[in-house]
């Protein structure tokens, strides 16, 4: 019998290295022997591995294609031209990218998916602009989408940070929400004439600021935090 020099545990007869410390432990007085394996070397079979998502996702994809197909056919058959169903197609494509595509990836990577979602949203707005024959995409749509995407990205980075407390993250959330509304209204002002610089977003930013300040106060007051935890746990 050998003993591991690191953890001190006794090793199975014939074992030449410790399975816990991964270091060699050879007893020169012990005759060489093959240890009896605790389990066979048979690899896991199909019934012992988790089900693959790929086939399920393919079925979901096919199902989502059904409303697109029906609306497109209805549109084409009604007046011979491809009209309103293009909006349905664009919307379903956006929904598919946001809701289904992440499940094709084995690892959960929110920041990467956020990037894809922003790109898909920009593309969606561009398609809407082209279908409708409008010209708001570059001065308004692109600016709003990229601005909101950037603010959400920053918020996601802050929420994933291990350095901020829950209340600090709550404050950051409300602050970003307020900034998003201001950004949208500013974009509207610069793109469309006749609208005030600051209107409805003033109310939302003020409300968000109040919530953010409350969260910051709670974050800096351990006694208040504890009292809230006691009264509001679920």
């Amino acid at each position: 019998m050998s003993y591991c020099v690191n953890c001190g545990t006794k090793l199975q007869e014939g074992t030449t290295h410790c399975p816990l410390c991964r270091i060699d432990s050879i007893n020169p007085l012990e005759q060489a022997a093959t240890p009896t394996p605790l389990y066979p070397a048979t690899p896991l079979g199909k019934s012992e591995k988790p089900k693959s998502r790929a086939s399920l996702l393919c079925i979901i994809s096919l199902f989502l294609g059904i409303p697109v197909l029906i609306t497109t056919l209805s549109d084409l058959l009604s007046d011979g031209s491809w009209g309103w169903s293009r909006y349905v197609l664009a919307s379903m494509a956006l929904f598919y990218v946001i809701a289904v595509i992440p499940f094709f990836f084995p690892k959960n990577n929110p920041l990467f998916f956020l990037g894809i979602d922003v790109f898909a949203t920009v593309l969606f707005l561009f398609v809407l602009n082209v279908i409708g024959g409008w010209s708001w995409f570059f001065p308004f749509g692109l600016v709003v989408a990229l601005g909101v995407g950037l603010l959400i990205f920053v918020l996601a980075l802050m929420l994933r940070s291990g350095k901020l407390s829950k209340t600090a993250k709550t404050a950051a959330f409300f602050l970003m929400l307020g900034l998003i509304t201001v950004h949208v209204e500013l974009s509207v002002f610069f793109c469309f004439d006749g609208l005030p610089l600051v209107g409805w977003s003033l109310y939302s930013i003020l409300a968000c600021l109040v919530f953010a300040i409350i969260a910051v106060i709670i974050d800096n007051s351990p006694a208040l935090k504890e009292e809230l935890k006691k009264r509001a746990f679920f």
Partner: protein
Amino acid sequence: MEHKNWLRLDNAAKIYPAAQRRSWSALFRLSVDLKEDIDPALLSEALKATLERYPSFRVSMKRGLFWFYLDRNDSMPPVQPDVCCPCPYLNMKRNSGFCLRVRYYQKRIAVEFFHVLTDGTGGLSFLKTLTAEYLRLKKEVTVSGECGILLCSEAPDESEMRDSFLDYAGDFSVSRSESDSFKIKGKIEKDNFVHLTCGVMNAAQVLQKAKEKQTTVTEYLTAVMIEALLNIQQREVKNKKRLRPVKICVPVNLRRFFPSKTVRNFASYVNPGVDPRMGEYTFDEILQAVRCQMGTEVTRQMLGAKFSANVRDEKNLLLRFVPLALKNMVMKTVFRLVGDRKTSTNISNLGILRLPPELEKEVTRADFILGPLSENPVACGVLTYGGKLRFNITRTICDPKTEREFFSLLVQKGIEVEIQSNLSSRSGE
């Protein structure tokens, strides 16, 4: 006696189908080693007779409108050769619909159970009966119905299939809220391989050490595990503000406090632990904390109040009439928020395996292994037989830091530990 062809899930079992994921289900494994190699044909025959004796195990789990239920399954589960690791994912469709899996390897018979069927005590009763029946067929060993063995020649009794939680639930319940605990982190092993490390100790030596400290074996081992995890957390978490309590989930067999013959789930749990944010702990201080917490919580009254809360939720009219699909989503979310997050790992001790003398002559070894947990990568099962206490640790991460820390602490405390591992069974190792 006529039996219904279907059963409701017992109170504890209701969470498992909801908590189940594409890649995880709550499994545990019990095994015995005999003196000769296993004959699979005889084992299959023994299994058939044992399943007749345990109708609550001869079932498939099916979806109802409001709840899952267990439906009688007249086919036979396949008796399969063992694989490289314990408790891999259970695909019930490929297992003839059964919620248990019977395996053999050289001289070993193993049964892996999905927790909807039973707990450790019920599973042990099933394995003992299966082993007795197998030996009766192979060597004409006659066994009396003692030590928890249910004779296959007798008809099943309805008391063995009762949901005892409903029998003993009272009107008063206690809050189940707790703080989150320290999580063992690490890189998840690829190919769904589950590492098993078995620490074999002299049971008398462990008992002696526990008695010196005036504790039980479970309390002693729990305290050592807490000390191990505190050491790991101290090394890994530098910022003291980010330290978390270290708590261990210790299942408690309710049959000790509430008489019941049921072979279904009838266990509760206690989560003893310490909070390192309050300061450093010596081993004796940890032991005292565990002893006090177990002493306060492992009483008839506290355990009854705890499961009464679950039974009250089950009987809630609003909850009962919610469609299963919606109920599942909510229970899954609650489980993710509450389930394994409150503890760092589990230590489930089934105590001493007692067998009739005729079986004791044939059985050389017994093991109890917990399958991987939902959120925690390490789980521990303990069973004592033949003077040997076997502490089985399963792990889904690459680094064996928990086992290394735990077993070296035991060695430092004067307990000799022999290590066995399934690392050599991994292809390429």
